[in-house]
């Protein structure tokens, strides 16, 4: 029983890791807290939902569409909106992202109404047994593996390509990067694009496992915070460690206290980690 709970936690944790990846990237490079992150996850989920409803496109194939469309959305939002205020005091970008969140959520509410939807695939309920000790739902394992693969691809882009180098250079020292010939405004737009694309991918995977609705973003943003805060900024492993930790702790916590305490548990973790270790479990001292 306990083994089953922990396995469920780990599987969900993989998805949390992918969810937080984009937020961690945007935060680390540009010092922007993307409050609208959960809304982008929601858009990714509904992108999959739409393609599935109207074109009967397999949700897994729709990953390509959700990732690419969300990349362009993110790119243009950064280019034409956020870049305009990027040098103002930090809470200005924060409240701007709130404005974007309110806009996206209500736009989605008009498009898709407040109904709870589900992407129902025929193979959704398949599972296999782990030697009689625990059952593993096939979709959850699949989403977990995909989340890890996508996270890895993002890390390769960041660490092995020229674009990744300019993104990291901008994060380390804006002026030095500029002197070395990096187009900072463009790098920022690309970074935001990548971050939102990762959110879109997380949304697609989320829609495979859980019901979706236009207002689901707020809680997901906060959970992404928890993951980023636990893992700390600026490390490759941060989101993965944070995601798995949150997944397991949440699974154990709801197992003991009940499902309605899920949010209370994750937000309490957020506040506690911030107070005790503000730079994350992996992060250095202040």
């Amino acid at each position, binding site marked *: 029983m306990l083994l089953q709970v922990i396995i469920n936690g780990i599987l969900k944790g993989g998805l949390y890791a992918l969810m937080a990846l984009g937020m961690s990237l945007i935060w680390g490079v540009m010092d922007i807290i993307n409050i609208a992150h959960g809304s982008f996850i929601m858009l990714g989920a509904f992108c999959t939902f739409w393609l599935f409803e109207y074109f009967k496109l397999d949700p897994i194939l729709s990953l390509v569409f959700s990732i690419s469309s969300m990349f362009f959305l993110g790119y243009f939002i950064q280019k034409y909106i956020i870049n305009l205020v*990027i040098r103002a005091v*930090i809470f200005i970008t*924060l*409240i701007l992202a*709130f404005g974007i969140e309110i806009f996206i959520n209500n736009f989605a509410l008009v498009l898709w109404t407040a109904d709870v939807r589900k992407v129902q695939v025929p193979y959704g309920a398949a599972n296999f047994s782990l030697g009689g000790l625990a059952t593993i739902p096939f979709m959850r394992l699949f989403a977990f593996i995909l989340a890890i693969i996508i996270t890895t691809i993002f890390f390769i882009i960041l660490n092995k390509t020229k674009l990744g180098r300019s993104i990291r250079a901008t994060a380390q020292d804006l002026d030095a990067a500029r002197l070395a010939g990096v187009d900072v405004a463009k790098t920022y737009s690309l970074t935001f694009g990548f971050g939102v694309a990762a959110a879109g991918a997380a949304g697609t995977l989320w829609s495979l496992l859980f019901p979706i609705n236009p207002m689901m973003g707020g809680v997901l943003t906060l959970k992404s915070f928890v993951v980023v805060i636990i893992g700390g900024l600026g490390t490759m492993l941060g989101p993965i460690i944070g995601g798995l930790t949150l997944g397991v702790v949440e699974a154990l916590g709801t197992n003991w206290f009940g499902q309605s305490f899920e949010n*209370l548990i994750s937000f309490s973790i957020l506040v506690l980690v*911030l*107070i005790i270790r*503000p730079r994350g479990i992996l992060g250095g001292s202040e």
Partner: protein
Amino acid sequence: MKKISVYLILLLIAIILPFFSNNFIIRFVTTIFMFGIMASAWNIIGGYTGYASFGNVVFFGIGAYITAILMEKGGMPFYLAFPAAGIGAAIFGILIGLPVLRLRGHYFAIATLGVAEAVKALVDNLEITEGNSGIYVPTLNLPVKGQYYFYYFMMLATLIGIILTTIFILRRKFGYGIIAIREDEDAANAVGINTTLFKTTAFALSGFFTGLAGSIYAYQLGFLKPEPVFTVQTTVKMIVMAVFGGIGTIFGPLLGAFTIEVISQILSNYFLVIHTLFFGVIVILAIIFTPQGIIDIVTGRKKFGMAYLMENIRKHRI
């Protein structure tokens, strides 16, 4: 002297206004006062002290729920529950402020947001708050018109209270202290300002007045549920109003509350279903074009025009 007479005239208008208006206008202006209180309270911690709290709605919710619990379960009259709500919110501000105010910048913002969400989830699960089914507040035993007057003047008095408090503290060591903390906390510490004490006091003060607003709101509404009371959108509204009016100014937040509420009201008249969508647009436009606040324009210190808007953008773009 001219300035003071303008404010006195405005105050006089505010006092006689309800006797010449219908219930709708009274309720509408009461809401403006409420947001004026909350935006001004946010201004103390976010504007003067420089700690951008993204969880100030927690004080509002705590004030509202203290009022509901004391009156409904404790049988207390409102005139006792009202100050208790403010003091309760202030104590919560001290307790939560001591650990959280050690964080800076984004980390403080996220921590306060997390606190607000955690308290919402807690209220949702507690028995004494009746969880998600909601809690009733006894209604005021007055004729309808009298009720409208009562809430209106309670909000107005609290609003005057916070504005006088702001003016008062700005002329004291405390006011200079918190502004010094905003400009450079380490330097403030070095010249002997007890930064922890000052920050926590500012946070508690902000919580006190927000809690009072929550208390009147609870009495006026008569029924509370965790979701609308603790919604993060209220925090967003406070901040946007303060920014739009002018953070770090005495009357800016009130001006922002007035302008944003009027715009929202007009929008919701024309676009019943999608007016929240436009609120998002207002937030985005206000942040991009008037990050310094419109108070400079209203008081005639700057001229409004294309040049003013472009100057703001040029200052912060990359």
